[in-house]
């Protein structure tokens, strides 16, 4: 790698001279700047992964169908977690890492928007959800900044094993989240307090007392009861 860089450094000035002398004659000549070279570190932070095509080939075929047909009932997950987190995780969630790792759930539910918190760019909506053990307040992430990789980590067909390194794994997660937010953009823009909404999405919890913070994949307004 460093050998290549030295060679490029020697060749570049010569190529630049040639290019100046005969620019028209060398239309295919491409000079890599030194900066471009330096932006390609020799380590696991490099990546040739195409996150956009990863999402475009999986979103309609696999991701949306998964959230439409496999998402667990949010109120059941919330009540189950409070009673026995590990059992609930094993039944409806997907654990990353080892036995103490975070658990991501694909969930669906309905509730009433009680507050919109958009002062931060990591905007959220608070939603009251009815469960067997009473009303619970959950948080929907509405962006533009969205935290975590709950969507990626809730999908059983997306595994850390399948990526060259953690950068690619992260890029896949970010691209899935971005795609989800693009899909709910109109519904997010129309959100207002008191509105009843139905949503499917993903949340990550490490223990029963963690707040339920959901990244929406599907979001729609429902008529008030």
């Amino acid at each position, binding site marked *: 790698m460093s050998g290549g860089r030295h060679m490029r450094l020697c060749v570049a000035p010569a190529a630049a001279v040639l290019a100046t002398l005969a620019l028209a004659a060398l239309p295919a000549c491409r000079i890599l700047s030194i900066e471009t070279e330096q932006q390609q570190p020799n380590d696991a932070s490099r990546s040739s992964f195409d996150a956009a095509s990863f999402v475009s080939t999986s979103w309609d075929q696999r991701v949306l169908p998964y959230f439409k047909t496999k998402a667990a009932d949010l109120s059941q997950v919330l009540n189950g977690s409070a009673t026995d987190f590990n059992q609930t995780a094993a039944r409806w969630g997907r654990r990353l890492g080892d036995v103490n790792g975070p658990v991501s759930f694909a969930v669906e539910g309905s509730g009433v928007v009680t507050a919109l918190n958009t002062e*931060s760019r990591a905007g959220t909506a608070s939603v009251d959800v009815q469960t067997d053990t009473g009303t619970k307040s959950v948080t929907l992430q509405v962006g533009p900044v969205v935290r975590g990789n709950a969507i990626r980590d809730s999908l059983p067909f997306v595994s850390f094993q399948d990526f060259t390194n953690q950068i690619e794994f992260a890029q896949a997660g970010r691209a899935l989240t971005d795609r989800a937010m693009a899909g709910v953009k109109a519904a997010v823009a129309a959100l207002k307090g008191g509105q009843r909404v139905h949503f499917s999405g993903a949340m990550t919890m490490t223990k029963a007392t963690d707040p339920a913070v959901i990244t929406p994949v599907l979001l729609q307004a429902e008529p008030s009861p």
Partner: protein
Amino acid sequence: MKRTACLIAAAGLLAGVAFAGAAYAEGAKKLIVVITPSHDNPSFTTEAVVAEAKAKELGYDTLVFSHDDDANKQNELIDTAITRKAAAIVLDNAGADATVAALQKAKAAGIPSFLIDREINATGVAIAQIVSNNYQGATLGAEEFVRVMGEKGNFFELVGKESDTNAGIRSKAYHDVISQYPNMKLVAQQSANWSQTEAFSKVESMLQAHPDVKGLISGNDTMGVGAIAALQAAKRGDVVVVSFDGSNDARDLVLAGKDAATVLQPFSHEAQLAVELADKYIKTGSTGQPEKISLDCTLITKANADKLNNMAMKE
């Protein structure tokens, strides 16, 4: 070289004659070789100490080395492990690409490798890669940094040693988060090579050039500690600092309100898990786990810093 070998052989023979019984018991123990980056950084000391203790507990002999982030030195240490017919190598490696060939050599010699912390850009070479998800951890640190800064202001970044994969990963994750906030502005970015003293002098001069700075995000705790010392010396305790690793030094600064947050890498847990998997592999020929295991990092703030000790959280 030859003479040394003869001397060692002779010494070995003598020892064998003198302590035949003891030598037999010692010889029956299998060897686990633990190789980490320099112990200048307490994170890597933790790895080495925990891995060694776990290996001894499970009845292994151990050899503990540091490669000092030098791929050639790492190569020699792997050769040593091969010569010593190690039963397993536990390694926090010296480069995602440079390490692959060295581990292939160990594999060819029948020695399984168990990687901790840093990953390599290849699978099927090591038996396990227990990876600290530095990207995820740095995301947590950057989110907290942005939050405490009120999502706006000029900031510095201190970057780690270029040969360390995780230096690049953390910096990338920091920027992936912070660039989503248009009022956050990076005014100076410098490498301090994970060094406390280098961070101190770099931050001193960065402060002179940019007195309007409001925050500093550091690639690790040792640089963070150096930066905080420089900020305190310049009476700029108002500058928000976030660092990474979860060392005891950083914990104390978090508790004192001088470091807004650090991010705990599960070094202790990883080292322990690597030895457990190695033991299982040695005994059964399988770890029963996929090769790549990603372990998440934990944000450490004033709210939970008192539970942190020697890079592990007390329950």
